[in-house]
Structure formats: C-alpha cells, structure tokens
C-alpha cells in the first residue's frame, strides 16, 4: 500500500472513533495532524479547505475528502473518506440492529429517556453557537428567526427556504441594509 494512503488512513480512522457530538469537534485535531505533524498542507491551504467544506452541502466532515484528494489524488480521497466515516458506520449498524431486536427493554427505555435531555441540550447549544457565528449582522439574525417560523408553521420546501435566505441577504446588502 502506498505510504501516503497508509498515512491518511492512520490519521483519520482513529479520529472517527473520537468524534462525539459532531464533526466540528475534531477540526482542531485534523488541523494539527495535517498541518503541524505531517506537513501535508500549509495553514492557508487548510483554511481554504475548511471554508470550502462549510460552503458545500452535505456533512462538513467531508473536508477530509478534499484533504485526501490534495494529498494523494483519487485514492487519497477514497481512503480519507472511508477512514473517517467507515469504522463507526458498523458500530451504528450494530446498535440499530440490537435496538430493533430488544424493542421495549428496560435498558433501551432508559437510554431513550436518559439521552433525550442530553441531545436536546446539545442541539440547543449548537444553534446558540451557530447564531453567534452568523455573519451579516441583524439582518441575518432576522432571516434566521423568520425561517424558523416558516419551518414550524408552513410546509415550505427546505431548499427554497435556504435559497430565499441567500437571495434576501443579497438584496438587503445591495439596498445597504446588511453588512
């Protein structure tokens, strides 16, 4: 096996097991490994990859696909993606299987009831952090609130909603009301 591929795998596979509560938590560690330890990318390249991942649709952790591509081409992209997403997929599959087999067991009800407040707190915290990091000032925050209302009380299509938000902020900026 190619040394670069082996390197990518040995960096991202362990990281996948340390990813709890969302890929954002591992960005700092990816940066350390990729830039400081292995010198695969410069700091500027890493930041540009991070920006592209935020801008692209899909899971933000696909940043590693881009890194793999830059380090070792097509197979680099495949290796990095499988290393980060693969191992824990089997774990989740096993849990989903056990879940269905033991429907209604005491441990399962305890996990459901016990994890629910934890998940609610984490989701609320994520929204809080996202709102704080939002660019575009008051106008963007208003768009976020209006959008929440639309999601809760109408059946508007999610893609239309997001495109509308983008168009509205561009219009407001051109009218001098945002940024």
């Amino acid at each position: 096996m190619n040394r670069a591929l082996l390197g990518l795998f040995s960096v991202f596979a362990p990281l996948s097991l340390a990813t709890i509560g969302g890929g954002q938590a591992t960005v700092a560690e990816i940066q350390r490994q990729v830039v400081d330890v292995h010198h695969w990318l410069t700091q500027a390249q890493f930041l540009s990859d991070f920006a592209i991942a935020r801008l692209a649709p899909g899971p933000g952790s696909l940043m590693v696909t881009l890194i793999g591509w830059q380090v070792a081409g097509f197979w680099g992209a495949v290796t990095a993606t499988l290393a980060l997403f693969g191992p824990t997929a089997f774990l989740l599959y096993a849990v989903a299987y056990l879940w269905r087999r033991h429907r209604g067991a005491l441990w399962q009800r305890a996990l459901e009831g016990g994890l629910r407040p934890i998940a609610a707190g984490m989701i609320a915290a994520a929204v809080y952090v996202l709102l704080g990091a939002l660019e575009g000032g008051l106008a963007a925050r208003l768009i976020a609130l209006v959008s929440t209302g639309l999601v809760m009380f109408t059946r508007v299509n999610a893609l239309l909603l997001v495109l509308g938000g983008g168009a509205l902020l561009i219009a407001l900026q051109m009218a001098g009301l945002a940024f």
Partner: protein
Amino acid sequence: MPSSAIAAERPSALTLFLIFSRIGLTSFGGGLSGWLMREFVQDRHWLTEEEFLNGLSISQALPGVNVKNMAIWIGYHLAGRAGAVAGFTGIILPPAVFIVLLGALFSALAGHPLTHVGLAGAAAAAIGLSLSMAITAVRRVRRALVPLAMMACVFVAVAVLRWPLLWVVLGLGSASVAWEFLRLRAQDRGRAREQA
C-alpha cells in the same frame, strides 16, 4: 409498539438512496439533521417525531459523524440492511464528489463578493431548520427536575463553557441514563406490585 406507527408505505432502498443523495447535495448552510427531520418527519411522515429524536440521541451519543450515523439509523429503520447501506452511501458519496469539484472551482467562486453574502444568507435561513429541531427536542424532554437540569447543564457546558463534547456526553450522559434506569425500574416494580 409497532416500529413505525405512522408509515403507510415502506420506501425501497433505492428511493432512500435518492432522497439522501438529494439532501446531501442540496443542504447548503449546514444543519443536516434539521433537513432530515423536515424530510422524513414533517414532509413524508415516515417517522414519528419520537422515533426521529430517539435516533438522533443515539447518533449523537455514539462516536462518528452525526449526520452519517443518523442516515444509517433512518435507513435501517425504514428498509433494513439495504436501507442502512443506502443511507450511508447516499449522504456521503454524492456530496464527496461535489466537494472535490467545488475545491477545483473555488477560486472562481470565492472571487465574487456577492457569493459570500449569499452564502451568509443561506446559512441564516438554514439555522431555521436547526432551531425548529431544537425547539421540538426541548419540548419533548420530560417535565421533571432531573431531565430539565441535565439539559440545562449540557447547554451551559457546551455553549457557554465550551467543554469538550466527549466528556460532557460521557459524564452527564451516563448520569442521566443511570437516573432514568433507576426511575423506570422502580416504576416497573411498583406496577408489578400493584398487579400482584
């Protein structure tokens, strides 16, 4: 309890793959779990809020990228093993190809100042998906002192104190599950005694 009380028809693995691909390719602005909830709970009624939130709790507590975990969970729930594979590949593969293409086009895209403004607006609107999911999740927490206190502690630890999620989930998560276990066991025993 039926595994999916309100599902009228069962989607095929191919249908699921196409739905997850579409969400993977159109979910600009992040907050993918919110997009998934919109699609599977509110639009298609294939899962109840309850089922979705249970899956989300597990996906967050187990290691691995949440969205990928959630896609496997939903896929397995709706179409067994083939559904799990459809969820995993659909949410990862098409956007992975897209991000590599986008990487190549990035300089052209980033050069235009309005791109940045448009993306900020899209991100703002996408927060609506996340926030409505947060409101649903918070409303579904049992109205009792311990669960509400757990939720508040997680929020403060993660949002304000910025503690590492790993320790928050391991610490507060196991405390919360242990509490719920003891409570349910006492409840079950009480009920058994009444019947005896």
